[in-house]
């Protein structure tokens, strides 16, 4: 490695240095504000650098990392999302009777993991990125557990997440080992159909399936979905948001790269497993969310379904002649990020680490108490439901197009049915927002206290609308970056 090789690593280096800086800062003097400022500036710098590097960069950096437009795109997205979460975390944690700084440290380290994952095309980097991300998330999930008045059950969430996640990691690792035993390589690119050693129809297929199962766990795809609602519910809201957005996105990028590069879908078994997972996830996720009262659980279940939708596009990518299915995944991931961040963000601005407002009924009449917040929330929910004027609709449009292009009629039907069920619970929340406000509301509007969080939610909302109405620019960008995968 030379110094020039470090240039493509800049975003990663910046975020890592931020982590180091944060550690130093903690060592010198704890300060919630300063920590946040450092974390934010580091992430902002990384985002900007990633965006600036994007047009020209396409470099395989050691066997582990590929820094191309696609990975830089998601590097930027993840860093930006991490910024949003930092901003949301600040008011949320401000009343926590514990040190707050480590949380941001963990968040930044997790972002390092995410960046590694989106740039990874090698099993080693995949595992390292994934575990870095997970390890930080264990900490974030359990973060408020010392607090006397912790809102939910962070301990329970963390234990469940840790144990199950470790099981899934071992699945993945064993799978990788089997693949490696068969092929003698750990890089994705040497597994494609042109490679000298290939995944013949032997036990490496089982390895691939093990690997997919492990990934499916991280993406909370059925039948590996069960941890999701509990972990979502038990974690502090910003951590949930991180888990739901960056955690999922990074994993999905790896999955997509793996599937595309290795052309794994050419094996019938993989194809069937993917289809099965997609169908099960869509149906189970939506049905499970149906009558939930906890907002976080609803979003957890809905995330199961959304990941199922995405799998359809992944499957479509195999049959497609164009890159639209990859664009669909890319676009939808971005859309899902924006709307999930928005939805969790709304919940998090009215909550704090001591008291989370998680029940749907807590939000009754929000429309009349805090119209702007309610409007944002409604926008996010409708976007999740895929209603026009929002980015979610364009995302769904992409998915449908990908499905149609590859003639996946059965999966499309499941998608339609699932989305139909999905409408129910999103609208149920919206309906609660519209009800007359209770005489003694659960929480008061906090716009003045949380100006930053409101601001960032507003930005997300505007993005949601802008990209829902005029996504042409973004589409062009995504078309460009999708060509690199």
């Amino acid at each position, binding site marked *: 490695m030379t110094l020039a090789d470090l240039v493509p690593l800049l975003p990663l280096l910046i975020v890592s240095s931020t982590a180091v800086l944060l550690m130093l800062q903690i060592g010198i003097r704890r300060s919630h504000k300063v920590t946040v400022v450092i974390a934010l500036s580091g992430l902002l710098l990384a985002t900007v650098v990633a965006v600036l590097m994007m047009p020209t960069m396409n470099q395989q950096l050691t066997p582990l990392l590929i820094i191309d437009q696609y990975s830089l795109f998601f590097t930027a997205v993840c860093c930006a999302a991490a910024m949003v979460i930092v901003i949301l975390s600040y008011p949320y944690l401000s009343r926590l009777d514990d040190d707050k700084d480590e949380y941001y440290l963990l968040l930044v380290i997790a972002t390092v993991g995410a960046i590694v994952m989106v740039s990874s095309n090698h099993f080693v980097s995949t595992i390292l990125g994934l575990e870095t991300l997970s390890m930080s998330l264990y900490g974030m999930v359990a973060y408020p557990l010392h607090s006397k008045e912790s809102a939910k059950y962070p301990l329970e969430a963390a234990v469940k997440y840790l144990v*199950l996640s470790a099981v899934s990691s071992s699945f993945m690792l064993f799978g990788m080992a089997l693949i490696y035993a068969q092929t003698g390589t750990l890089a994705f690119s040497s597994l494609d159909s042109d490679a000298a050693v290939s995944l013949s129809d032997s036990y490496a297929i*089982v390895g*691939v399936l093990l690997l997919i199962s492990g990934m499916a766990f991280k993406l909370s795809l059925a039948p590996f979905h069960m941890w999701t609602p509990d972990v979502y519910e038990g974690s502090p809201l910003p951590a949930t948001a991180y888990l739901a957005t960056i955690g999922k996105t990074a994993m999905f990028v790896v999955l997509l790269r793996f599937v595309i590069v290795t052309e794994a879908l050419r094996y019938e078994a993989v194809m069937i497993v993917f289809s099965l997972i997609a169908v099960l996830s869509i149906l189970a996720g939506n049905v499970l969310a149906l009558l939930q009262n906890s907002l976080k659980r609803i979003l957890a279940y809905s995330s199961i379904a959304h990941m199922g939708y995405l799998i359809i596009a992944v499957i479509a990518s195999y049959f497609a002649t164009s890159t639209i299915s990859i664009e669909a995944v890319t676009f939808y991931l971005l859309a899902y990020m924006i709307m999930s961040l928005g939805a969790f963000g709304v919940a998090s601005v009215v909550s704090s680490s001591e008291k989370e407002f998680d029940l749907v009924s807590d939000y009754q009449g929000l429309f009349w108490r805090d119209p702007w917040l309610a409007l944002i929330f409604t926008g996010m929910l409708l976007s999740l439901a895929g209603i026009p004027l929002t980015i979610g609709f364009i995302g769904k449009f992409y998915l449908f197009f990908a499905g149609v292009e590859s003639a996946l009629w059965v999966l499309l039907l499941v998608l339609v049915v699932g989305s139909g069920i999905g409408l129910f619970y999103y609208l149920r929340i919206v309906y609660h927002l519209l009800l007359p406000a209770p005489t003694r509301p659960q929480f008061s509007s906090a716009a003045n206290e949380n100006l930053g969080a409101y601001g960032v939610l507003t930005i997300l909302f505007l993005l949601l609308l802008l990209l829902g109405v005029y996504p042409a620019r973004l589409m062009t960008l995504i078309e460009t970056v999708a060509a690199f995968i």
Partner: protein
Amino acid sequence: MQDLIWLLPTFPLLGFLALVLTGGSLPRKIVAVIGAGSVGLSFLSAALIAAQFLASGEDYFVKEVWVWMAIGEFTPGFNFYLDGLSLVMMLIITGVGFLIHLYSTGFMVDDPAYSRFFAYMNLFVAAMLMLVLGDNLVLLYLGWEGVGLCSYLLIGFWYENPDNGYAARKAFVVTRVGDTAMAIGLFLLFTQLGTLNIQDMLGAAQQQWAMGSPLAIAAALLLLGGAVGKSAQLPLQTWLPDAMVGPTPISALIHAATMVTAGVYLVARTHVLFELAPTVQMLVAFVGLATLLMAGFTAMTQRDIKRILAYSTISQIGYMFLALGAGAWSAAVFHLMTHAFFKALLFLAAGTVILSLHHEHDIFKMGGKRKQLPVAFWSFIIGSAALAALPFTSGFYSKDEILLAALAVEGPGLLLWIGGVIGAFFTGIYSFRLVFVVFFGDSKAHHEAKEEASLSMAVPLIVLMVLALLGGWIQVPLDAVFSQGAGHEEEHVSLLVHGFMIAAPLMGIGISYLFYMSKVFDVDKLMTNRVANSLHRFWFSGWGMDALYQWIFVNPFLYLARINRSDLIDGFYALLVSITRTAHLMLARTQTGYLGWYALSMAAGLVVIITLGVML
């Protein structure tokens, strides 16, 4: 003047609008002036137009007012067509209509909804004129439905009583059954012949359809359906007796003189079609025959004065249908006219009686009205005589023509004739039964009878008496209309035939006299006979048709409505919802919260997935 023919419906329509828009705020005098005056104006113009038309010697006259709609070949317009037939009809409608309006100004004077009444009446006249003057079937249909609507509104005029509402709805719905058939007939005619202009259509039918072609039969049948409904013929006659709950002038105008004869008009107007379909024409005759007999039987048993008259109306229209079926188009129209006179007379007179007895309808609670109500009495005498077709009354001439035409029909002619004569016999019985019971004998009124009605009510009665007596001398100018009509040559029939025809009603009157006047026979005693009693009950119920329809159509419909109030199909979606909900509950139970269970599910999932991989 002929160009102003559009004024005819316009006057009453303007009257209607004026009355509706003022919403009952006008004083009664002005309402009367508007209500009756508009029809009077209409009658005046009709008379002038008729004079001019007859003088011109033309066969027909068309006035196009505006194109209603034009889509390709389908171009019905608001065009008025005047020939002998519509001339007669228009004069009857405006003339008799005016008289009845005049009468109503007195009859309804105490009613709080005076203005509404005249509004409906005016609308009716306008619609009826549309019906008879329209040059195309769509316009005819407009009038046709319009009069049906007015009939509905006026039957249910006294809306506080739900029974009236029921009768009104029954009238509308039953006739609509016929109307629907007619609408389908219209579709058929247009589809086949490419036009709904009556004259063009008839011409095209003659050119395109052979005698007895299935299409012609279908078309004629469907139109007959409409006619049967509107004219209360079997099997759609059940609404008319119930319609009598409306104010009596309505019964006179709509349910005796004009609207119910629209079916006759329709068949006469489209007689070419019926001639192309001889079987249907024969059916018309038999429908008429069956109806006139059935109604005759029933009329004999009724106790309600207006119901008796209603059944007699049904019966008389049966004669008209008989005539139509026999191809005696002119005779049918002629009878239509005379019937309009004497039946309007009878109803109006009955109205006087009823009014004087505070809306008492049961004839057996009346009696001895001869002195108290002389105008009504004489009206009834003359009207009943005409109804029974006693010689030299108007009814005699028209019925005579009909029966002769029936006899002349090839094949079942004799049968038709005998039936007609029997009908005449019954007519004698029930018409004079009414007269004897109401006007002779002792007064059985429980309450003080009112005085004889006002001048406005007497004048129409007197005019109608004259018409009922002398109407038979009127020459109807129908030759040009039914140029091909059969049964025109004066056939020589034996004196015996004439004798029977004169004797039948007289015998009827005689029997009636024996039962109800001289009491030589006792009705009550007759009723102790089981056969007679059950026959009586059968006839009284109108041959049980109401019960039959209730059983076949109404009850099943109500049953279906009741069991499916909440919409079965909705139930299907509800099922989907409950399936989803159950699935949710079941799946939610898998989320036990136990870590071991979650790990187990992962392992199970893995096993399934690997199994798939191993097997494939």
